[in-house]
């Protein structure tokens, strides 16, 4: 098939899925935090608030876009654009599954297969700082400026441990290509322990994984490192002066960054789309089992409804889940759906961790944040890198 046509189709699919993920990630976040805090969360718009993201988007689009009179207009308008562009670009090099064949066309499940994929992600994430820094500066507002400065300082500082944490598994895998990295994690020790990055010989990268995760929280300005938008000190930080879609752009950029770092963590440390135990022990039935259990749970709760509407909504979701469970059993689509399921499950687990932490931990003080990065995370990443290189050098043939 024509390269351009194929790329267009793949881009359309990835963009559609990514945009829906971003919208619903926010819904999931509100729901999860609500349940952690013993509330119910959004549930007015649509069944269980499922149409809440749509309502939010309509509200944000139709809201008047204010342009304060004291801002540097060009940079003020440019900043959200930069932030969201660099946040969305990185998804182009993330592979979601192996090379598949659909209707005689062989293609990899990613937009582009770069042989410097990891470096590309690092480069793009480094450029994302400009959006936040410019937003803070161009707003001509002390809270925005402080937020922007805090954010850039924090992102520069945490980029170091993050890069060190990425470098250690790269020493083991010996490649910068995401597809090859995942291929090297597709085996099992003693036939059931997966040799994912966190378990990989000669030096398991659990420490690097933890350093990477912590740095990722800081890079994406998430709790407990969300100092740039600490509302009790800085109003809303760098986006104080932004409203309507310009504000939504920053919001989207934050969630897109979260999705990207979760994908990178999955690819480097959690084996990408490789199942956690081999197919001969039945790992290909897990997706069907999970969905069937979810469907049956829906039917059970529909039979004992807590709310009158549940009698109608829950069976619909039950039938949907059972349908998906059946879909995973069809051998023709299994090579496509199973890798996507495992990739989605691992990425989703890390995203859930992001939300869970936000619901649990309080915010750092700024000096604590910096001391933590330079005096703990950085040396730890360095030690891990040294130990890994030693192990790799000693076991090299």
């Amino acid at each position: 098939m024509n390269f351009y046509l194929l790329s267009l189709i793949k881009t359309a699919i990835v963009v559609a899925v990514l945009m829906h993920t971003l919208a619903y990630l926010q819904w999931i976040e509100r729901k999860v935090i609500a349940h952690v805090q013993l509330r119910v969360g959004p549930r007015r718009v649509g069944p269980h608030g499922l149409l809440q993201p749509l309502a939010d988007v309509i509200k944000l689009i139709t809201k008047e876009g204010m342009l304060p009179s004291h801002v540097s207009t060009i940079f003020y308008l440019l900043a959200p654009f930069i932030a969201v562009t660099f946040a969305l670009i990185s998804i182009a090099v993330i592979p979601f599954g192996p090379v598949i064949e659909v209707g005689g066309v062989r293609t990899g499940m990613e937009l582009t297969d770069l042989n410097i994929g990891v470096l590309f992600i690092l480069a793009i994430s480094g450029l994302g700082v400009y959006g936040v820094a410019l937003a803070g500066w161009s707003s001509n507002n002390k809270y925005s400026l402080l937020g922007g400065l805090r954010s850039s300082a924090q992102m520069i500082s945490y980029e170091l441990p993050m890069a060190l944490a990425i470098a250690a598994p790269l020493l083991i895998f010996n490649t910068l290509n995401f597809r090859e990295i995942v291929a090297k994690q597709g085996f099992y020790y003693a036939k059931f322990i997966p040799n994912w990055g966190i378990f990989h010989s000669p030096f398991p990268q659990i420490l690097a994984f933890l350093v990477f995760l912590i740095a990722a929280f800081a890079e994406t300005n998430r709790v407990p490192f969300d100092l740039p938008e600490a509302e009790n000190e800085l109003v809303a930080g760098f986006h104080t002066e932004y409203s309507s879609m310009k504000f939504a752009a920053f919001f989207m950029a934050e969630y897109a960054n979260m999705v990207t770092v979760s994908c990178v963590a999955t690819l480097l440390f959690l084996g990408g789309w490789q199942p956690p135990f081999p197919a001969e022990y039945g790992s290909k039935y897990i997706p069907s089992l999970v969905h069937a259990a979810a469907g049956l749970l829906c039917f059970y709760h529909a039979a004992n409804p807590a709310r009158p509407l549940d009698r109608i909504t829950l069976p619909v979701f039950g039938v949907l889940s059972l349908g998906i469970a059946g879909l995973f059993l069809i051998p023709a689509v299994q090579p496509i759906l199973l890798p996507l399921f495992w990739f989605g499950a691992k990425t989703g687990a890390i995203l859930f961790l992001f939300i869970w932490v936000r619901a649990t931990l309080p915010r750092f003080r700024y000096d604590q944040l910096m001391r933590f990065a330079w005096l703990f995370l950085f040396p730890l990443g360095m030690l891990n890198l040294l130990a890994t290189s030693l192990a790799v050098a000693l076991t090299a043939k």
Partner: protein
Amino acid sequence: MNSILFLILAAIAVGCGINVVLQTHPISSALSLVGVMGALAVFYLQLGGEFIAAAQLIVYAGAVMVLFVFVIMLLGAGKERKTKPRIWVRWAGPPLLIFFVGAVAYVLETGLPPSAPVRFGGFDGGTVEAIGARLFTEYLLPFEVTSLLILIAIAGAIVLARKEID
């Protein structure tokens, strides 16, 4: 395809480069410089230097320029005032500029040995593996000496920047 891309990027690079000098606000100049570096990174990529392209973005656009912008913001540097150029600058400047550009072009055209034109995709020594192998074998000494130099510079910066203890 490659030539069209090159022309577009060359226009962007030169435009941004001129903009660095023309802008009156430091932030605008700094961002134009980022544009130049981004265009340069794509040039490297076109010529087959993929590692150097990524390093250009990570180190220059991502780290050095962010620090520049950071410092400009911290210092709160405002707009520069444009002064009126002196009369002899206004009259002698353009001819001198044309003369020097012409002189450089003439020397480059005649003084250098004729070389084969650059072919896009004709070079494959820019991969990470190739550069790593060269750095740790052929250029090991310069590489180590440079890193030592940077280490000394860092130590010097710390000594200069530390607070005096009474």
